[in-house]
C-alpha cells in the first residue's frame, strides 16, 4: 500500500471520529496509533508472564523490543496476533487495540486479524512446497484462484521481500533449497502476500549470517514506510540501527519505552542502562 493511501485512510478515519462523537477527541489519539496496549497481564496457567504493560505503537516505523532471555518478548509479540490462542490454558487481562479495535473482543475474527497482523518467526519456516506455492499460500487460503492475479501477487511480494531477482527463474523449486537468509526473506514475502498492515518479527535474523542479516535490515527499513513493524531482537546494534522506538523488557515488565536514541544514549532506568551497555543479559 502506498504511503499516500495510508495517509488518506488515517485522515479519513480521524475525520470520521472527530465528526460526530463526543469522545472524538480522546479517540483521535487512539486511532493514529496502529496498536494500543492497555494494562496487559498475561498468564500461562497460573504463571504470569507479562505484568501490566501499556504501550502504543505508531502507524509507521520500526519498534524494537529488547530484553534478556525469558523476559516475555515473544509472549508479548504473540499476544498481538492472538497466536497465543494456540497455547492451551492461557489467560489475558487488559485491552489490546489494533487499529482501534479490541482484538480480544468476543466478536473479533481471528483469521481476519492475522491477515492484518503478519508474523515472521525466529527460525525461517517456509512450507515444504515450492517457492511459488509458499508465497501464493496466503492469498489462496483467502479464496484467490485466478492464476494471473496469483502470479502478480507472487512477483510483487517477492520483490517486496527483496528476493525476486534471486529466485525468478526457479519459482517452482522447493523453498527448502534456498539458503537460510533467502528462506527468511521468502517468509517475509509470504507474509507480504496477504497484505498485512502490521509486521511482527521475532528475532528474524538470529538464525542467519551477517550478510543476509544486512539485507533483511535494509528490507525492514524499506518496509517501515508502509508498515508498522515490531521486531524482537537480542542484538543491541541491530535495535539501534533499525528502530525508531525501543522497549526494554525485564522479567515480564516493560521497564522503559522511548525513542531509540534516548534509550541507548540516555536511559532513565538503571536496569535499561545496564542492559544496553552489556552489563547483564
Amino acid at each position, binding site marked *: 500500500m502506498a504511503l499516500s493511501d495510508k495517509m488518506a485512510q488515517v485522515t479519513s478515519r480521524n475525520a470520521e471520529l472527530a465528526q460526530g462523537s463526543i469522545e472524538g477527541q480522546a479517540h483521535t489519539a487512539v486511532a493514529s496509533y496502529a496498536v494500543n496496549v492497555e494494562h496487559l497481564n498475561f498468564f500461562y496457567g497460573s504463571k504470569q508472564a507479562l505484568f501490566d504493560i501499556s504501550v502504543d505503537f505508531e502507524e509507521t516505523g520500526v519498534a524494537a523490543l529488547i530484553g534478556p532471555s525469558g523476559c516475555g518478548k515473544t509472549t508479548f509479540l504473540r499476544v498481538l496476533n492472538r497466536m497465543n490462542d*494456540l497455547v*492451551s490454558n492461557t489467560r489475558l487481562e487488559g485491552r489490546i487495540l489494533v487499529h482501534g479495535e479490541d482484538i480480544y473482543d468476543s466478536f473479533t475474527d481471528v*483469521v481476519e486479524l492475522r491477515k492484518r497482523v503478519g508474523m515472521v*518467526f525466529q*527460525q525461517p519456516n517456509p512450507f*515444504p512446497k515450492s517457492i511459488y506455492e509458499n508465497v501464493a499460500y*496466503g492469498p489462496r487460503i483467502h479464496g484467490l484462484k485466478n492464476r494471473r492475479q496469483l502470479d502478480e501477487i507472487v512477483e510483487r511480494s517477492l520483490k517486496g521481500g527483496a528476493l525476486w531477482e534471486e529466485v525468478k527463474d526457479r519459482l517452482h523449486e522447493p523453498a527448502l533449497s534456498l539458503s537460510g537468509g533467502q528462506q527468511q526473506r521468502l517468509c517475509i514475502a509470504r*507474509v507480504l502476500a496477504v497484505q498485512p498492515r502490521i509486521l511482527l518479527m521475532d528475532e528474524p535474523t538470529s538464525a542467519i549470517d551477517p550478510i543476509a542479516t544486512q539485507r533483511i535490515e535494509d528490507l525492514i527499513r524499506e518496509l517501515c514506510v508502509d508498515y508498522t513493524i515490531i521486531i524482537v531482537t537480542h542484538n543491541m546494534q541491530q535495535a539501534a540501527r533499525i528502530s525508531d522506538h525501543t522497549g526494554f523488557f525485564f522479567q515480564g515488565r516493560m521497564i522503559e519505552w522511548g525513542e531509540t536514541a534516548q534509550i541507548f544514549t540516555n536511559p532513565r532506568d538503571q536496569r535499561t542502562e545496564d542492559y544496553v551497555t552489556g552489563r547483564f543479559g
Partner: protein
Amino acid sequence: MRERHGKSRTKGQWRGAEIIGYWALRSSLIIALLILFLILYDIVSKGIGVINWEFITASPRSGMTEGGIYPAIIGTLYVTLITIAFAVPLGVAAAIYLNEYAVQGRFTRLVRMALRNLAGVPSIVFGLFGMAVFVKFFGFGPSLIAAGFTLGLLTLPVTVTASEEALATVPRAYREGAFALGATRWQVVRSVVLPRALPGILTGTILGLARAAGETAPILATGAAFFLPYLPSSLRSRFMALPYHLFIMSTQHHAISQVRPIAYGTALILVALVCMLNLVAVSLRRRYRRRVARGL
C-alpha cells in the same frame, strides 16, 4: 550408526564381559532370523509345488481335495477392501481430531491409553464382538460386510495410533506459519499437515491391514464360509478367505494328509499377499523420505 560403531571399535576398548554381551545380543538376532527363515523355507518348499495357474484361478473341486483357491483369494481381497473403507476414513479422522483439534489433557490421555489397550485385545474377542454387533444387532448376518467391519474394528487402534504419530511428526513451525497467515484450523490440516503426514499414515495403515488380512478369528463367526462354489455377489454374501481356508485345510478337513500340499500352497499365497502389502508400505516410506529430502 552401524558403520560408525564398526569403525570406532578397536580391540583395546573391548573387555571380556562386553564381548560375551555382544555375542549374546548378536546370537539372539541370528536365532530369530534363523527361525523366521526356517518357517519361510518350510512354507515355500512345500507350497511352491502346487502353485500353478489353475491353483490361483480355479475353485476347489472334489470335496476340496483338488482344484484351486480362487474364491478364497477373492474373498480375502474383498473383505480387505471393506476393512479399508471402514477403518481408514474413521481412523484418520479420529487421529486428526485427537491430534489437531482436541484440547490435550486427561481426556485425550485416556483415549490414547484405551487405544493402546484395544490394540492388544485378542482377535477372537473382536470376532465375538463383531458377531454380536454386526451379525446379530445390525442384522447383517454372517457376511462380507460384517466380517469387514469386524476386521476394521480390529485395525482401528493401529490406524489411529499410526496416523496420529504421522501427524505429530509434522513440525509445529509449519502449523504456526500457516496460522499466522490467517489459515483456519481445517485449512492448516488440509493444506499443510495432511500432505506432509499422508505417507506416514498410509504406511502405518497398510501394516495394520496386512495384519488384519491374515486374521482368522475375527472372520470365523462373522462371515467366512467353509466352502462356497461361487464368489460373493453382494456385501451380504458369505465368502471364503485365505486364513480360514488354511485353518480348515490343516485341521478340519476329512483327509488332512491328502490336502496338505494345498494347505501349504494356501499358506504361501497368504504370506506372499501379506509380504506384498508390507513391500508397498516400505516403498511408500522410501519415496516419502526422498521427497522430504528434496523438500517438497
